[in-house]
């Protein structure tokens, strides 16, 4: 593995076998994600972009090819934020955020301190003892993000983290993620999304994927300076860039 790459995929494919037929979900895909890079993956529904993410997380193995991921203590040095159903209703906000640290057997006082500090960064300080059932969808995803970040993984994987939220809230959480990530010292992020705006605002690089079986159609550097501000959305350059992405993707979505 070349140093400086958090993830390397070489001719990676994934086929899902079901009783009726085999589904070629992904690939072959070649991909490098550099350390500290924020990569967004966009593509039509069912193109295997979530599968790619789950392979990086070690939840799914490739059917062919090879995927190399930076490890710590023998497992991918990555944490995942899921779209929904991932924070645990039986744990308080604090216990949810602390879970990764508890599992790694971090000493309780230190784990509490780290969890509280991530809760503060994600605006959850007033809800530490609340159970998720009493939280709004936006709050729950903040918990999911804080929980993923608390064990300090080298790689953050996000699978359409804001897709279940309403449009205004989605924008608020995008802005917060932008701020947290830029303040956090440039952790590696792979974010799967449907939203070109989200990808253009957050990403350093955008990978556009084809219909199933998903392949890389384009690998697009995002031309905006860091640190970025949410106001970037309203600039003509941003709008033009989003249009350009849409051109790349439109035909794929139409034929999906």
């Amino acid at each position, binding site marked *: 593995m070349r140093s400086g790459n958090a993830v390397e995929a070489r001719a990676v494919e994934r086929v899902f076998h079901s009783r009726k037929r085999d589904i070629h979900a992904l690939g072959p895909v070649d991909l490098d994600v550099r350390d500290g890079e924020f990569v967004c993956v966009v593509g039509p529904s069912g193109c295997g972009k979530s599968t790619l993410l*789950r392979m990086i*997380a*070690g*939840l799914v193995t490739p059917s062919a090819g090879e995927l190399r991921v930076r490890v710590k*203590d023998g*497992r991918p040095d*990555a*944490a*995942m934020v*899921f779209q*929904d*159903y*991932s*924070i*645990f*209703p*039986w*744990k308080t906000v604090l216990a949810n955020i602390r*879970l*990764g640290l*508890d*599992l*790694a057997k971090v000493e309780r006082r230190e784990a509490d301190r780290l969890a509280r500090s991530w809760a503060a960064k994600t605006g959850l300080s007033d809800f530490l003892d609340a*159970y*998720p*059932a009493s939280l709004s969808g936006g709050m729950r995803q903040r918990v999911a993000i804080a*929980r*993923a970040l608390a*064990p300090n993984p080298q790689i953050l*994987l996000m699978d359409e983290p804001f897709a279940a939220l309403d449009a205004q809230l989605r924008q608020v959480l995008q802005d917060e993620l932008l701020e947290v990530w830029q303040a956090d010292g440039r952790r590696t992020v792979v974010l799967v999304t449907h939203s070109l705006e989200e990808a253009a605002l957050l990403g350093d690089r955008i990978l556009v994927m084809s219909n199933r079986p998903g392949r890389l159609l384009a690998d697009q550097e995002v031309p905006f300076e860091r640190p970025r501000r949410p106001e970037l959305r309203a600039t003509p350059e941003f709008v033009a860039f989003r249009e350009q992405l849409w051109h790349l993707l439109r035909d794929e979505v139409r034929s999906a």
Partner: protein
Amino acid sequence: MTTTSQESGNEQSTEGHLSFRPGPGDRQPAAYARRRRSFEVAIAFVAPISFFALWQIASTSGWLDERFFPAPTTVWSTAVELVRTGELQESLAISTRRALIGLAFGVVSGCAMGILLGLSPLWRAALEPFLSACYTVPKLALLPLLLLIFGIGEAPKIVLIAITVFFFVWIATMEAVMSMPESYREAGRSLGAGPWQAMRHIVIPAILPQIFVSIRLSAGVSILVIVGAEFVQGGDGIGYLIWHSWSLLRAEAMYVGIVAVALLGFVLGEVVKWVGRLLMPWAPRDAGRAVM
């Protein structure tokens, strides 16, 4: 739009429009809810009180044979007598002890089997058909066999309850594990949970509500079973009291036993609900009730 001066909420106006106005429950929601609750509590007593009143009248007026259907007042004085001699408490204590020990064994083994089969398709393939077939065997029919194996002490009755309870808890637990959202387990794995950590932090809390529903059902069933077992074997316990009183033509003592069993079942069910609330502070208050 015309409006009406009626007390109740929604009224048809003359113009062919509907006029929606606040009803009594909207104008004073707190008072309305309070009255509603008192009313609900009150009507809960109507059924049992009318039942006992009718029984009392039927029995004292001679419509029912007093030898078999003694008046509730007679039953009550017998109950007072049985409490004074200690016979009732002793019988209840013996039966409760058997039921609880059997329940505990049944719940623990049922949970363990349910989790094993829920998580492992291989074990499921190996054991589920066999266990499903055993589930339908009437467990009381096994009592003679259990007596043969375990002798005539406490063991056969406790084992009988444990076997009965095992199946209830096993099925509920296995189904709960299998219907657990996959993303719970994936979230655990992505945070680095090993198999035992996943069990403790994810699987067990996720299935706990369904387990408690099955324990509530099992608590009632364990009492049914212990009473049945005491009917046919042994010389103590509340089931023995009921059966023995009947054979001595002491119907009033039999009714005392029957009512005591009903109350015991009720209390046990409430205790299980209370423990469930203690163990599951995240669940809404009546979670178990909603599932049932």
